[in-house]
Protein backbone atom coordinates (compact mmCIF):
# COMPACT_ATOMS: atom_id res chain seq x y z
CA UNK A 1 0.00 0.00 0.00
CA UNK A 2 1.09 3.55 -0.67
CA UNK A 3 3.09 5.51 1.86
CA UNK A 4 0.56 8.33 1.72
CA UNK A 5 -2.73 7.17 3.28
CA UNK A 6 -4.18 10.70 3.44
CA UNK A 7 -4.14 13.31 0.75
CA UNK A 8 -6.11 16.56 0.59
CA UNK A 9 -6.30 18.42 -2.73
CA UNK A 10 -7.59 21.91 -3.15
CA UNK A 11 -9.98 21.76 -0.24
CA UNK A 12 -12.46 24.58 0.22
CA UNK A 13 -14.83 24.97 3.17
CA UNK A 14 -17.24 27.84 3.62
CA UNK A 15 -19.28 28.68 6.71
CA UNK A 16 -22.25 30.97 6.92
CA UNK A 17 -21.45 33.86 9.23
CA UNK A 18 -24.55 36.00 9.64
CA UNK A 19 -25.58 36.78 6.08
CA UNK A 20 -22.13 36.58 4.53
CA UNK A 21 -20.15 33.49 3.65
CA UNK A 22 -16.67 33.08 5.09
CA UNK A 23 -14.08 30.85 3.49
CA UNK A 24 -12.45 29.20 6.48
CA UNK A 25 -10.40 26.90 4.28
CA UNK A 26 -9.34 27.93 0.76
CA UNK A 27 -7.54 25.70 -1.73
CA UNK A 28 -5.78 23.74 0.98
CA UNK A 29 -3.56 20.85 -0.06
CA UNK A 30 -1.83 18.47 2.26
CA UNK A 31 -0.31 15.01 2.48
CA UNK A 32 0.36 12.79 5.46
CA UNK A 33 3.08 10.14 5.29
CA UNK A 34 3.26 6.92 7.23
CA UNK A 35 5.57 6.86 10.21
CA UNK A 36 5.37 10.61 10.63
CA UNK A 37 3.82 12.88 13.25
CA UNK A 38 2.69 16.20 11.81
CA UNK A 39 1.73 19.15 14.01
CA UNK A 40 -0.75 21.82 12.97
CA UNK A 41 -0.60 25.11 14.83
CA UNK A 42 -2.29 28.46 14.32
CA UNK A 43 -4.38 31.10 16.04
CA UNK A 44 -7.75 30.30 17.53
CA UNK A 45 -10.49 30.30 14.93
CA UNK A 46 -8.09 29.83 12.05
CA UNK A 47 -9.73 26.57 11.02
CA UNK A 48 -7.51 23.87 12.50
CA UNK A 49 -10.36 21.78 13.85
CA UNK A 50 -12.25 22.27 10.61
CA UNK A 51 -9.26 20.96 8.69
CA UNK A 52 -9.00 17.95 10.96
CA UNK A 53 -12.72 17.22 10.65
CA UNK A 54 -12.46 17.18 6.88
CA UNK A 55 -9.36 15.00 6.96
CA UNK A 56 -11.12 12.73 9.43
CA UNK A 57 -14.29 12.19 7.34
CA UNK A 58 -16.40 14.03 9.91
CA UNK A 59 -17.15 16.92 7.60
CA UNK A 60 -17.55 17.09 3.84
CA UNK A 61 -15.62 19.85 2.07
CA UNK A 62 -17.37 22.26 -0.28
CA UNK A 63 -14.73 21.64 -2.92
CA UNK A 64 -11.66 19.53 -3.56
CA UNK A 65 -10.75 15.89 -2.98
CA UNK A 66 -10.10 13.97 0.21
CA UNK A 67 -8.24 10.81 -0.66
CA UNK A 68 -8.11 8.16 2.07
CA UNK A 69 -6.20 5.03 1.11
CA UNK A 70 -6.72 5.80 -2.56
CA UNK A 71 -10.48 6.54 -2.47
CA UNK A 72 -11.96 10.01 -2.72
CA UNK A 73 -14.34 10.29 0.22
CA UNK A 74 -15.34 13.93 -0.32
CA UNK A 75 -18.80 13.00 -1.53
CA UNK A 76 -19.41 9.95 0.66
CA UNK A 77 -22.69 9.59 2.56
CA UNK A 78 -22.72 9.85 6.34
CA UNK A 79 -22.91 6.09 6.66
CA UNK A 80 -19.98 5.50 4.31
CA UNK A 81 -17.96 8.11 6.15
CA UNK A 82 -18.72 6.39 9.46
CA UNK A 83 -17.20 3.25 8.01
CA UNK A 84 -14.10 5.12 6.84
CA UNK A 85 -13.72 6.56 10.35
CA UNK A 86 -14.14 3.17 11.92
CA UNK A 87 -11.58 1.33 9.81
CA UNK A 88 -9.10 3.86 8.42
CA UNK A 89 -8.90 6.57 11.07
CA UNK A 90 -8.15 6.66 14.76
CA UNK A 91 -9.30 9.69 16.75
CA UNK A 92 -8.04 11.22 19.95
CA UNK A 93 -10.11 14.13 21.23
CA UNK A 94 -9.46 16.84 23.78
CA UNK A 95 -10.73 15.20 26.91
CA UNK A 96 -13.05 12.64 28.43
CA UNK A 97 -14.02 10.93 25.23
CA UNK A 98 -14.08 7.48 26.75
CA UNK A 99 -17.33 5.63 27.31
CA UNK A 100 -18.04 6.14 31.06
CA UNK A 101 -19.46 2.69 31.76
CA UNK A 102 -16.78 0.59 30.08
CA UNK A 103 -13.61 -0.67 31.73
CA UNK A 104 -10.36 0.21 30.01
CA UNK A 105 -10.07 -3.15 28.24
CA UNK A 106 -13.72 -2.93 27.15
CA UNK A 107 -13.11 0.48 25.57
CA UNK A 108 -10.78 -1.27 23.13
CA UNK A 109 -13.07 -4.24 22.79
CA UNK A 110 -15.97 -2.01 21.78
CA UNK A 111 -14.20 -0.38 18.82
CA UNK A 112 -12.97 -3.77 17.70
CA UNK A 113 -16.49 -5.16 17.83
CA UNK A 114 -17.86 -2.21 15.90
CA UNK A 115 -15.46 -3.09 13.08
CA UNK A 116 -15.13 -6.87 13.18
CA UNK A 117 -15.12 -9.50 15.86
CA UNK A 118 -13.55 -9.81 19.24
CA UNK A 119 -11.40 -12.91 19.45
CA UNK A 120 -8.31 -14.25 21.15
CA UNK A 121 -6.09 -12.45 18.68
CA UNK A 122 -7.84 -9.14 19.27
CA UNK A 123 -7.53 -9.67 22.99
CA UNK A 124 -3.77 -10.03 22.69
CA UNK A 125 -3.62 -6.96 20.49
CA UNK A 126 -5.50 -4.96 23.10
CA UNK A 127 -3.20 -6.21 25.82
CA UNK A 128 -0.14 -5.23 23.81
CA UNK A 129 -1.57 -1.79 23.07
CA UNK A 130 -2.33 -1.14 26.71
CA UNK A 131 1.16 -2.30 27.58
CA UNK A 132 2.72 0.05 25.06
CA UNK A 133 0.82 3.00 26.57
CA UNK A 134 1.83 1.80 30.02
CA UNK A 135 -1.60 0.91 31.31
CA UNK A 136 -1.64 -2.88 31.55
CA UNK A 137 -2.21 -2.54 35.30
CA UNK A 138 -5.30 -0.37 34.70
CA UNK A 139 -7.14 -2.81 32.43
CA UNK A 140 -10.05 -3.28 34.80
CA UNK A 141 -10.53 0.34 35.80
CA UNK A 142 -13.36 2.60 34.77
CA UNK A 143 -12.53 5.97 33.17
CA UNK A 144 -13.59 7.85 36.31
CA UNK A 145 -10.94 5.94 38.24
CA UNK A 146 -8.16 7.17 35.94
CA UNK A 147 -6.17 10.39 35.89
CA UNK A 148 -6.47 12.79 32.92
CA UNK A 149 -3.18 11.59 31.47
CA UNK A 150 -4.15 7.94 31.87
CA UNK A 151 -7.43 8.60 30.12
CA UNK A 152 -5.63 10.11 27.16
CA UNK A 153 -3.36 7.07 27.03
CA UNK A 154 -6.44 4.86 26.83
CA UNK A 155 -7.76 7.09 24.06
CA UNK A 156 -4.48 6.63 22.20
CA UNK A 157 -4.63 2.86 22.60
CA UNK A 158 -8.25 2.92 21.41
CA UNK A 159 -7.30 4.99 18.36
CA UNK A 160 -4.78 2.33 17.34
CA UNK A 161 -7.07 -0.63 18.05
CA UNK A 162 -8.56 -1.09 14.60
CA UNK A 163 -5.11 -0.69 13.07
CA UNK A 164 -6.03 2.42 11.06
CA UNK A 165 -3.47 4.07 8.77
CA UNK A 166 -4.31 7.57 9.96
CA UNK A 167 -4.31 8.92 13.52
CA UNK A 168 -5.89 12.32 14.17
CA UNK A 169 -5.68 14.21 17.44
CA UNK A 170 -7.28 17.58 18.16
CA UNK A 171 -5.52 19.21 21.11
CA UNK A 172 -5.11 15.91 22.97
CA UNK A 173 -3.19 17.65 25.73
CA UNK A 174 -5.54 20.57 26.31
CA UNK A 175 -6.54 19.33 29.76
CA UNK A 176 -3.09 18.19 30.88
CA UNK A 177 -0.19 20.00 32.52
CA UNK A 178 3.16 20.58 30.76
CA UNK A 179 4.92 17.42 31.85
CA UNK A 180 1.98 15.13 31.08
CA UNK A 181 1.47 16.86 27.73
CA UNK A 182 5.00 16.09 26.62
CA UNK A 183 4.67 12.46 27.74
CA UNK A 184 1.46 12.00 25.79
CA UNK A 185 2.75 13.55 22.58
CA UNK A 186 6.00 11.62 22.86
CA UNK A 187 4.03 8.44 23.26
CA UNK A 188 1.93 9.37 20.23
CA UNK A 189 5.05 10.08 18.17
CA UNK A 190 6.67 6.79 19.17
CA UNK A 191 3.55 4.78 18.49
CA UNK A 192 3.12 6.40 15.06
CA UNK A 193 6.70 5.50 14.14
CA UNK A 194 6.56 2.01 15.68
CA UNK A 195 3.34 1.07 13.98
CA UNK A 196 3.99 3.07 10.82
CA UNK A 197 0.97 5.36 11.00
CA UNK A 198 0.39 8.79 9.54
CA UNK A 199 -0.43 10.96 12.56
CA UNK A 200 -1.64 14.56 12.68
CA UNK A 201 -1.91 16.54 15.88
CA UNK A 202 -3.49 19.95 16.27
CA UNK A 203 -1.99 21.80 19.20
CA UNK A 204 -1.53 25.10 20.98
CA UNK A 205 1.30 23.84 23.05
CA UNK A 206 4.74 24.90 21.77
CA UNK A 207 6.44 22.54 24.20
CA UNK A 208 5.27 19.43 22.39
CA UNK A 209 6.49 20.54 18.94
CA UNK A 210 9.97 18.99 19.30
CA UNK A 211 8.37 15.53 19.08
CA UNK A 212 6.84 16.28 15.67
CA UNK A 213 8.42 15.60 12.29
CA UNK A 214 6.83 18.51 10.45
CA UNK A 215 5.04 21.56 11.70
CA UNK A 216 2.37 23.31 9.68
CA UNK A 217 0.85 26.68 10.35
CA UNK A 218 -2.79 27.35 9.57
CA UNK A 219 -2.78 30.69 7.87
CA UNK A 220 -5.56 32.36 5.95
CA UNK A 221 -7.23 29.09 5.02
CA UNK A 222 -4.06 27.31 3.97
CA UNK A 223 -1.48 25.08 5.63
CA UNK A 224 2.02 26.48 5.39
CA UNK A 225 5.03 24.35 6.22
CA UNK A 226 6.85 26.09 9.05
CA UNK A 227 9.51 23.69 10.03
CA UNK A 228 10.76 20.29 9.03
CA UNK A 229 12.87 18.28 11.40
CA UNK A 230 15.07 15.69 9.90
Amino acid at each position, binding site marked *: MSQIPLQLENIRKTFQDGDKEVDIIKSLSFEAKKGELVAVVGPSGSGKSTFL*SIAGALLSPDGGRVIVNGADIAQFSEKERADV*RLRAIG*FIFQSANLVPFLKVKDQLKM*VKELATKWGREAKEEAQQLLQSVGLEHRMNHYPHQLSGGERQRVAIARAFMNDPDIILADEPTASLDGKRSKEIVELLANEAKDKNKAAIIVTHDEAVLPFCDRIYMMDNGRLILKEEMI
Partner: protein
Amino acid sequence: MLTHSIKEICFFKLRYILIGFILFFVAALVFIINGLANGLAAENISSLKNMNAEAFYIAKDANNRIEQSRFSISDVEKISKDDRVEPLGLQMLSLKKSGSNQKVDVTIMAVHPKGFLMPEVTEGKSIATSKEPQLVVNNSIKDDGVKIGDELYEENSETTFTVVGFTEKETYSHTPVAFISLKSWEDMLGSQVKPYYNALVLKNDNQVVKSDVKGSLGSGVWVSTDDVIKGMPSHQAEQTSLNMMLIFLIIIAVFVLGAFFYIMTIQKMNQFGVLKAIGAKNGYLIGTTMLQVFFISVVSISVAVGFTKLMQMLLPSSMPFIFNGVLILTYAGILMVVSMLGALLSTVNIIKVDPLQAIGRVE
Protein backbone atom coordinates in the same frame (compact mmCIF):
# COMPACT_ATOMS: atom_id res chain seq x y z
CA MET B 1 -24.37 -4.52 21.27
CA LEU B 2 -25.82 -6.85 23.89
CA THR B 3 -22.92 -6.73 26.33
CA HIS B 4 -22.62 -3.01 25.75
CA SER B 5 -26.24 -2.40 26.80
CA ILE B 6 -25.99 -4.68 29.82
CA LYS B 7 -22.75 -3.06 30.98
CA GLU B 8 -24.36 0.35 30.78
CA ILE B 9 -27.34 -0.81 32.85
CA CYS B 10 -25.01 -2.32 35.46
CA PHE B 11 -22.91 0.82 35.64
CA PHE B 12 -25.79 3.29 35.90
CA LYS B 13 -27.83 1.04 38.17
CA LEU B 14 -29.71 3.78 39.95
CA ARG B 15 -30.97 5.41 36.78
CA TYR B 16 -32.26 2.19 35.34
CA ILE B 17 -33.70 0.94 38.60
CA LEU B 18 -35.66 4.18 38.82
CA ILE B 19 -37.17 3.70 35.38
CA GLY B 20 -37.78 0.07 36.20
CA PHE B 21 -39.68 1.10 39.32
CA ILE B 22 -41.89 3.56 37.48
CA LEU B 23 -42.72 0.95 34.91
CA PHE B 24 -43.31 -1.64 37.61
CA PHE B 25 -45.77 0.58 39.49
CA VAL B 26 -47.67 1.56 36.37
CA ALA B 27 -47.84 -2.05 35.24
CA ALA B 28 -48.90 -3.32 38.68
CA LEU B 29 -51.60 -0.66 38.84
CA VAL B 30 -52.87 -1.57 35.39
CA PHE B 31 -53.00 -5.25 36.32
CA ILE B 32 -54.70 -4.63 39.66
CA ILE B 33 -57.34 -2.39 38.13
CA ASN B 34 -57.89 -5.03 35.51
CA GLY B 35 -58.25 -7.67 38.21
CA LEU B 36 -60.71 -5.46 40.02
CA ALA B 37 -62.74 -4.87 36.86
CA ASN B 38 -62.87 -8.62 36.29
CA GLY B 39 -63.80 -9.25 39.90
CA LEU B 40 -66.56 -6.67 39.94
CA ALA B 41 -67.91 -7.91 36.63
CA ALA B 42 -68.00 -11.43 37.99
CA GLU B 43 -69.85 -10.35 41.14
CA ASN B 44 -72.32 -8.50 39.04
CA ILE B 45 -73.07 -10.83 36.20
CA SER B 46 -71.48 -14.23 36.82
CA SER B 47 -74.87 -15.79 37.37
CA LEU B 48 -76.06 -14.64 33.95
CA LYS B 49 -72.75 -15.53 32.35
CA ASN B 50 -72.76 -19.06 33.73
CA MET B 51 -76.41 -19.62 33.01
CA ASN B 52 -77.28 -22.23 30.44
CA ALA B 53 -79.23 -19.63 28.54
CA GLU B 54 -79.31 -18.38 25.00
CA ALA B 55 -81.97 -15.71 25.31
CA PHE B 56 -84.51 -14.21 27.66
CA TYR B 57 -88.09 -13.36 26.88
CA ILE B 58 -88.64 -10.02 28.59
CA ALA B 59 -91.52 -7.55 28.68
CA LYS B 60 -91.28 -4.96 25.88
CA ASP B 61 -91.03 -1.94 28.17
CA ALA B 62 -88.48 -3.45 30.58
CA ASN B 63 -85.32 -1.97 28.96
CA ASN B 64 -83.76 -5.43 28.70
CA ARG B 65 -83.83 -5.70 32.47
CA ILE B 66 -85.12 -8.91 34.03
CA GLU B 67 -86.17 -7.20 37.29
CA GLN B 68 -88.44 -4.81 35.43
CA SER B 69 -90.19 -7.48 33.41
CA ARG B 70 -93.27 -9.37 34.59
CA PHE B 71 -95.54 -12.02 33.16
CA SER B 72 -98.41 -13.33 35.22
CA ILE B 73 -98.26 -17.02 36.03
CA SER B 74 -101.60 -17.65 34.41
CA ASP B 75 -100.25 -16.23 31.13
CA VAL B 76 -97.08 -18.25 31.35
CA GLU B 77 -99.07 -21.41 31.92
CA LYS B 78 -100.74 -20.90 28.53
CA ILE B 79 -97.47 -21.74 26.81
CA SER B 80 -97.33 -25.33 25.70
CA LYS B 81 -95.07 -27.45 27.88
CA ASP B 82 -91.55 -27.54 26.45
CA ASP B 83 -88.37 -28.35 28.37
CA ARG B 84 -86.28 -26.05 26.19
CA VAL B 85 -87.85 -22.99 27.76
CA GLU B 86 -88.29 -22.32 31.46
CA PRO B 87 -89.71 -19.53 33.59
CA LEU B 88 -87.45 -17.50 35.86
CA GLY B 89 -88.39 -15.48 38.90
CA LEU B 90 -85.94 -12.90 40.10
CA GLN B 91 -86.01 -10.62 43.11
CA MET B 92 -83.46 -8.88 45.28
CA LEU B 93 -84.22 -9.43 48.94
CA SER B 94 -82.87 -8.98 52.41
CA LEU B 95 -83.09 -12.15 54.47
CA LYS B 96 -82.76 -12.24 58.20
CA LYS B 97 -80.75 -14.97 59.86
CA SER B 98 -83.03 -16.54 62.41
CA GLY B 99 -81.78 -16.28 65.91
CA SER B 100 -80.05 -12.99 65.20
CA ASN B 101 -80.78 -9.59 63.76
CA GLN B 102 -78.20 -9.92 61.00
CA LYS B 103 -79.51 -9.37 57.49
CA VAL B 104 -77.98 -10.69 54.31
CA ASP B 105 -78.74 -9.37 50.84
CA VAL B 106 -79.38 -11.99 48.22
CA THR B 107 -80.86 -12.26 44.78
CA ILE B 108 -83.61 -14.83 44.71
CA MET B 109 -83.84 -16.83 41.51
CA ALA B 110 -86.81 -19.12 41.22
CA VAL B 111 -86.18 -22.06 38.90
CA HIS B 112 -87.31 -25.58 38.15
CA PRO B 113 -85.26 -27.63 40.62
CA LYS B 114 -84.66 -30.25 37.94
CA GLY B 115 -84.49 -27.83 34.99
CA PHE B 116 -81.54 -26.46 33.08
CA LEU B 117 -81.45 -23.23 35.07
CA MET B 118 -80.58 -25.00 38.31
CA PRO B 119 -76.80 -24.85 38.80
CA GLU B 120 -74.69 -27.67 40.11
CA VAL B 121 -74.76 -27.97 43.88
CA THR B 122 -71.20 -28.11 45.20
CA GLU B 123 -72.00 -28.72 48.84
CA GLY B 124 -75.07 -30.12 50.60
CA LYS B 125 -78.05 -31.17 48.52
CA SER B 126 -80.34 -29.63 45.96
CA ILE B 127 -83.73 -28.06 46.61
CA ALA B 128 -86.77 -30.29 46.61
CA THR B 129 -89.61 -29.65 44.18
CA SER B 130 -92.31 -29.22 46.78
CA LYS B 131 -92.19 -29.35 50.55
CA GLU B 132 -90.93 -26.64 52.83
CA PRO B 133 -89.19 -23.52 51.39
CA GLN B 134 -85.58 -24.43 50.77
CA LEU B 135 -82.73 -22.68 49.06
CA VAL B 136 -79.35 -23.36 47.52
CA VAL B 137 -77.17 -20.29 47.72
CA ASN B 138 -73.81 -19.13 46.38
CA ASN B 139 -70.99 -20.05 48.73
CA SER B 140 -69.89 -16.40 49.12
CA ILE B 141 -72.66 -16.14 51.71
CA LYS B 142 -70.44 -18.17 54.04
CA ASP B 143 -68.57 -14.92 54.67
CA ASP B 144 -71.73 -13.78 56.47
CA GLY B 145 -71.60 -16.86 58.67
CA VAL B 146 -74.40 -18.78 56.94
CA LYS B 147 -74.09 -22.58 57.13
CA ILE B 148 -76.06 -25.51 55.76
CA GLY B 149 -79.11 -26.04 57.90
CA ASP B 150 -79.43 -22.36 58.84
CA GLU B 151 -82.78 -20.69 58.47
CA LEU B 152 -83.25 -17.43 56.62
CA TYR B 153 -86.39 -15.42 57.19
CA GLU B 154 -88.13 -13.22 54.62
CA GLU B 155 -90.16 -10.62 56.47
CA ASN B 156 -92.78 -9.45 53.94
CA SER B 157 -94.06 -12.89 53.09
CA GLU B 158 -93.14 -14.31 56.47
CA THR B 159 -91.41 -17.19 54.76
CA THR B 160 -88.60 -19.11 56.41
CA PHE B 161 -86.13 -20.74 54.03
CA THR B 162 -83.77 -23.52 55.02
CA VAL B 163 -80.32 -23.48 53.49
CA VAL B 164 -79.84 -26.98 52.06
CA GLY B 165 -76.82 -26.51 49.81
CA PHE B 166 -74.21 -24.26 48.32
CA THR B 167 -73.28 -23.56 44.74
CA GLU B 168 -70.46 -21.44 43.35
CA LYS B 169 -69.88 -18.64 40.83
CA GLU B 170 -73.50 -17.56 41.10
CA THR B 171 -73.69 -13.86 41.92
CA TYR B 172 -75.91 -11.18 40.55
CA SER B 173 -75.74 -7.45 41.15
CA HIS B 174 -73.00 -7.95 43.78
CA THR B 175 -75.13 -10.29 45.87
CA PRO B 176 -75.09 -14.06 46.18
CA VAL B 177 -77.86 -15.78 44.26
CA ALA B 178 -80.23 -17.98 46.22
CA PHE B 179 -82.06 -20.56 44.14
CA ILE B 180 -85.56 -21.55 45.23
CA SER B 181 -88.16 -23.73 43.62
CA LEU B 182 -90.99 -22.29 41.55
CA LYS B 183 -93.38 -23.59 44.17
CA SER B 184 -91.65 -21.70 47.00
CA TRP B 185 -91.61 -18.63 44.74
CA GLU B 186 -95.36 -18.79 44.15
CA ASP B 187 -95.99 -19.34 47.84
CA MET B 188 -93.75 -16.44 48.74
CA LEU B 189 -95.47 -14.02 46.37
CA GLY B 190 -98.95 -15.43 46.69
CA SER B 191 -99.84 -13.75 49.91
CA GLN B 192 -99.34 -10.23 48.57
CA VAL B 193 -99.51 -9.86 44.79
CA LYS B 194 -100.78 -11.70 41.81
CA PRO B 195 -97.98 -14.24 41.28
CA TYR B 196 -95.72 -13.62 38.33
CA TYR B 197 -92.46 -14.66 36.69
CA ASN B 198 -89.94 -12.16 35.43
CA ALA B 199 -88.75 -13.87 32.30
CA LEU B 200 -88.76 -16.99 30.20
CA VAL B 201 -85.38 -18.45 29.43
CA LEU B 202 -84.45 -20.29 26.27
CA LYS B 203 -81.73 -22.90 26.49
CA ASN B 204 -80.58 -23.12 22.87
CA ASP B 205 -81.43 -20.91 19.96
CA ASN B 206 -84.58 -22.24 18.40
CA GLN B 207 -86.83 -20.16 16.17
CA VAL B 208 -89.83 -22.48 16.57
CA VAL B 209 -89.79 -22.22 20.34
CA LYS B 210 -89.17 -18.49 20.12
CA SER B 211 -92.18 -17.80 17.90
CA ASP B 212 -94.25 -20.25 19.93
CA VAL B 213 -93.64 -18.24 23.08
CA LYS B 214 -94.19 -14.98 21.28
CA GLY B 215 -97.46 -16.34 19.87
CA SER B 216 -98.95 -17.19 23.24
CA LEU B 217 -97.39 -14.30 25.17
CA GLY B 218 -97.40 -11.29 22.87
CA SER B 219 -96.23 -8.57 25.21
CA GLY B 220 -92.52 -9.39 25.24
CA VAL B 221 -89.36 -9.58 23.16
CA TRP B 222 -86.52 -12.09 22.96
CA VAL B 223 -83.28 -10.56 24.21
CA SER B 224 -79.96 -12.36 23.97
CA THR B 225 -78.08 -13.08 27.21
CA ASP B 226 -75.30 -10.72 26.12
CA ASP B 227 -77.78 -7.89 25.68
CA VAL B 228 -79.29 -8.56 29.07
CA ILE B 229 -75.79 -8.29 30.58
CA LYS B 230 -75.16 -5.07 28.69
CA GLY B 231 -78.47 -3.75 29.92
CA MET B 232 -77.40 -3.93 33.56
CA PRO B 233 -76.66 -0.30 34.35
CA SER B 234 -74.24 -0.93 37.22
CA HIS B 235 -72.19 -3.31 35.11
CA GLN B 236 -71.75 -0.75 32.33
CA ALA B 237 -70.90 2.02 34.78
CA GLU B 238 -68.28 -0.02 36.66
CA GLN B 239 -66.62 -1.39 33.59
CA THR B 240 -66.57 1.94 31.76
CA SER B 241 -65.02 3.86 34.64
CA LEU B 242 -62.40 1.20 35.35
CA ASN B 243 -61.51 0.86 31.70
CA MET B 244 -61.20 4.63 31.49
CA MET B 245 -58.71 4.48 34.35
CA LEU B 246 -56.77 1.82 32.50
CA ILE B 247 -56.64 3.80 29.30
CA PHE B 248 -55.54 6.96 31.10
CA LEU B 249 -52.88 5.03 32.99
CA ILE B 250 -51.49 3.71 29.76
CA ILE B 251 -51.50 7.17 28.20
CA ILE B 252 -49.73 8.55 31.27
CA ALA B 253 -47.21 5.74 30.97
CA VAL B 254 -46.47 6.74 27.37
CA PHE B 255 -45.68 10.30 28.43
CA VAL B 256 -43.77 9.53 31.62
CA LEU B 257 -41.63 6.87 30.00
CA GLY B 258 -41.20 8.94 26.85
CA ALA B 259 -40.00 11.90 28.93
CA PHE B 260 -37.68 9.72 30.95
CA PHE B 261 -36.05 8.13 27.93
CA TYR B 262 -35.85 11.52 26.28
CA ILE B 263 -33.93 12.99 29.20
CA MET B 264 -31.70 9.97 29.29
CA THR B 265 -30.70 10.24 25.64
CA ILE B 266 -30.22 14.01 26.00
CA GLN B 267 -27.78 13.34 28.82
CA LYS B 268 -25.89 10.97 26.59
CA MET B 269 -25.63 13.24 23.54
CA ASN B 270 -21.93 13.81 24.12
CA GLN B 271 -21.23 10.16 24.41
CA PHE B 272 -23.22 9.44 21.25
CA GLY B 273 -21.22 12.14 19.47
CA VAL B 274 -17.91 10.54 20.41
CA LEU B 275 -19.12 7.05 19.52
CA LYS B 276 -20.36 8.27 16.15
CA ALA B 277 -17.07 10.06 15.54
CA ILE B 278 -15.11 6.88 16.07
CA GLY B 279 -17.38 5.09 13.63
CA ALA B 280 -20.46 3.76 15.46
CA LYS B 281 -23.56 3.89 13.26
CA ASN B 282 -27.07 5.02 14.16
CA GLY B 283 -28.29 1.44 14.00
CA TYR B 284 -25.85 0.36 16.67
CA LEU B 285 -26.63 3.23 19.04
CA ILE B 286 -30.39 2.89 18.59
CA GLY B 287 -30.05 -0.87 18.95
CA THR B 288 -28.28 -0.62 22.31
CA THR B 289 -30.81 1.91 23.60
CA MET B 290 -33.79 -0.18 22.53
CA LEU B 291 -32.24 -3.33 23.97
CA GLN B 292 -31.84 -1.61 27.32
CA VAL B 293 -35.45 -0.47 27.32
CA PHE B 294 -36.48 -3.97 26.31
CA PHE B 295 -34.62 -5.51 29.26
CA ILE B 296 -35.96 -3.02 31.75
CA SER B 297 -39.50 -3.47 30.46
CA VAL B 298 -39.41 -7.26 30.46
CA VAL B 299 -38.05 -7.35 34.00
CA SER B 300 -40.38 -4.69 35.45
CA ILE B 301 -43.50 -6.00 33.76
CA SER B 302 -42.76 -9.60 34.73
CA VAL B 303 -42.21 -8.57 38.33
CA ALA B 304 -45.49 -6.65 38.17
CA VAL B 305 -47.29 -9.75 36.91
CA GLY B 306 -45.80 -11.75 39.77
CA PHE B 307 -46.76 -9.04 42.22
CA THR B 308 -50.35 -9.04 40.98
CA LYS B 309 -50.53 -12.82 41.29
CA LEU B 310 -49.26 -12.50 44.85
CA MET B 311 -51.83 -9.79 45.55
CA GLN B 312 -54.55 -12.13 44.42
CA MET B 313 -53.42 -14.79 46.84
CA LEU B 314 -53.07 -12.39 49.76
CA LEU B 315 -56.35 -10.52 49.28
CA PRO B 316 -59.33 -11.77 51.27
CA SER B 317 -61.72 -13.84 49.18
CA SER B 318 -64.50 -11.32 49.75
CA MET B 319 -62.51 -8.82 47.68
CA PRO B 320 -63.68 -8.85 44.08
CA PHE B 321 -60.40 -9.56 42.33
CA ILE B 322 -59.84 -12.00 39.49
CA PHE B 323 -56.46 -12.66 37.91
CA ASN B 324 -57.27 -13.32 34.29
CA GLY B 325 -54.05 -14.59 32.71
CA VAL B 326 -55.01 -13.84 29.13
CA LEU B 327 -56.07 -10.28 29.89
CA ILE B 328 -53.03 -9.61 32.09
CA LEU B 329 -50.74 -10.84 29.34
CA THR B 330 -52.55 -8.65 26.84
CA TYR B 331 -52.03 -5.60 29.02
CA ALA B 332 -48.42 -6.65 29.64
CA GLY B 333 -47.97 -6.72 25.87
CA ILE B 334 -49.56 -3.29 25.49
CA LEU B 335 -47.28 -1.84 28.17
CA MET B 336 -44.29 -3.45 26.49
CA VAL B 337 -45.22 -1.80 23.20
CA VAL B 338 -45.86 1.50 24.99
CA SER B 339 -42.43 1.58 26.60
CA MET B 340 -40.69 0.55 23.39
CA LEU B 341 -42.59 3.32 21.59
CA GLY B 342 -41.56 5.84 24.23
CA ALA B 343 -37.96 4.82 23.71
CA LEU B 344 -38.30 4.89 19.96
CA LEU B 345 -39.43 8.53 20.10
CA SER B 346 -36.26 9.53 21.92
CA THR B 347 -34.05 7.77 19.37
CA VAL B 348 -34.77 10.73 17.09
CA ASN B 349 -32.20 12.50 19.27
CA ILE B 350 -29.63 9.85 18.54
CA ILE B 351 -30.07 10.30 14.81
CA LYS B 352 -29.76 14.07 15.22
CA VAL B 353 -26.41 13.90 17.03
CA ASP B 354 -23.65 15.21 14.76
CA PRO B 355 -20.38 13.30 15.19
CA LEU B 356 -18.65 16.59 14.41
CA GLN B 357 -19.46 17.81 17.90
CA ALA B 358 -16.83 15.47 19.30
CA ILE B 359 -14.03 17.46 17.73
CA GLY B 360 -12.89 21.01 18.40
CA ARG B 361 -14.64 21.27 21.73
CA VAL B 362 -13.11 21.51 25.15
CA GLU B 363 -15.44 20.64 28.01
